[in-house]
């Protein structure tokens, strides 16, 4: 009997899950406010402290900082939110229930990607608006810049979200996942020259280490989008290195997805 009626497709279930996840997320007012306001708050507060103007280019430190913070905001809605979200799904039985249905695992991840893509885009839009109002960051108009934004965003979000899922599987609980992802994120934010600008002010060793991770490249890529050409001189290499950025972010996408497959767990059962 079942053979006669075909099972719904992975993609269509995945998109339905995306709609489900978005509803679930946006109805939790507290989480929404917390998720979006934390990076904004950090950007507004620290950005107001960085009053320097670089004499050689006339650029303001706060602009450099704000451009990088947009990257950090996206990472927090992808890596951190995903890490916590999946751990929560595991703890409250969502994953266990899904495991007992014919829903393919891939559909679950499609749903999560939809959620992360929408919330990260919203985060970026909010931060860009505030940064342009407060710090005079110019919204780019050339399609080239937006193309760069598109691939940096897509690669960054995918890689970070996959790493978030992997991180959630390593943690034993929601609290563990929240603390773990936030610590990693904070340390990398610092070492990648997001909280300290320009990145050249950091010790070389520190940047050499953080250059292995996606945060640095994500933020550098976004600085290339939101800052004028001459701002490239405040990067470690004195240029935007878009090719290398694409390479590192792609590598993390692949590594993240592999890691995700390797360590993903449906339940917290220790058997």
């Amino acid at each position: 009997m079942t053979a006669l009626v075909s099972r719904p497709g992975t993609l269509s279930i995945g998109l339905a899950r995306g709609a489900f996840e978005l509803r679930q997320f946006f109805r939790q007012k507290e989480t929404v406010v917390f998720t979006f306001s934390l990076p904004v708050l950090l950007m507004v507060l620290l950005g107001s402290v960085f009053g320097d103007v670089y004499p050689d280019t006339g650029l303001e430190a706060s602009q450099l900082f704000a451009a990088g913070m947009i990257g950090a905001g996206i990472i927090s809605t992808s890596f951190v939110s995903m890490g916590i979200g999946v751990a929560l799904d595991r703890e409250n039985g969502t994953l266990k229930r899904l495991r007992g249905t014919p829903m393919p695992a891939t559909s679950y991840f499609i749903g999560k990607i939809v959620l992360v893509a929408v919330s990260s885009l919203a985060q970026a839009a909010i931060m860009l608006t505030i940064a342009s109002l407060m710090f005079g960051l110019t919204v780019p108009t050339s399609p080239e810049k937006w193309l760069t934004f598109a691939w940096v965003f897509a690669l960054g979000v995918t890689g970070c979200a996959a790493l978030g899922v992997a991180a959630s599987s390593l943690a034993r609980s929601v609290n563990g996942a929240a603390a773990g992802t936030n610590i990693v994120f904070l340390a990398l934010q610092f070492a990648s020259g997001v909280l300290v600008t320009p990145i050249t002010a950091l010790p070389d060793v520190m940047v050499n280490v953080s250059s292995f991770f996606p945060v640095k490249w994500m933020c550098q890529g976004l600085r290339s989008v939101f800052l004028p050409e001459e701002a490239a001189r405040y990067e470690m290499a004195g240029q935007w290195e878009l090719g290398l950025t694409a390479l590192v972010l792609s590598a993390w996408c692949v590594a993240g997805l592999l890691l995700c497959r390797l360590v993903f767990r449906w339940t917290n059962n220790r058997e």
Partner: protein
Amino acid sequence: MEVRGLRKDYGASTVVAGVDLDIRQGEIFALLGPNGAGKTTTVEILEGHRRRTGGDVRVLGEDPGRAGGAWRARIGIVLQSASDSAELTVAESLRHFARYYPDPRDPEEVVRLVGLEEKRNARVQTLSGGQRRRLDVALGIIGRPELLFLDEPTTGFDPEVRRKFWTLIELLAAEGTTILLTTHYLDEAEALADRVAVLAGGRVVAEGTPATLGGRANAEATVRWTDARGAHERRTPRPTSLVNELSAGGGELGGLTVTRPSLEDTYLDLIGERR
């Protein structure tokens, strides 16, 4: 469903120690047993949620440890506890889960079947414990399963809802659904189950129809009555003869009752023997 020598160890402790079960198509089978007997463990192995340590298991012709989506489309699961989908409404949850299945039930019909009409637009997190449980049952049957697992489905139901739930289960059984349920309510097992098994210490200590479990049908009956000399109580294997004898004079016997041990008495005896 066929289970042979099922074993499950958690570390050094054996929780299920060689369980054999056969559940036929269309049957309602109840698994009884005290807290920690291994009911949930057994059921979750059959659902494919946990790995077994040993034994052979066939559920709908497949090994649940390896079965895929097509197999999962044929089963329905009501877990012992859940607190997911908190922000969605009852109707939204049901409509969403219906999309996973090739031939789902109408979500509106399911809302009616579990009696959640008034709560259909309420957020799941605002439901009371018993209402939440009814939603769990609803989600378990939304895919029109051939085989339904129910782990303590009626915990937290008020008596009226519990009766309605029984009617629902009978309806599903009449449609040909095979049902495996665990419960601590012996009246529930008696009312619903075609057969029951009592699990204790990870073993099946008795199995049979509710009426014959543990030799219940042949056990001594207790006859109680009152006459001019006061209240009497006598245990006998042949209550009919006794009543005949007593009523030989033609007089009416006050407060006459003939009772067999209830399923609960039998159950407690069975569990007691294990201790």
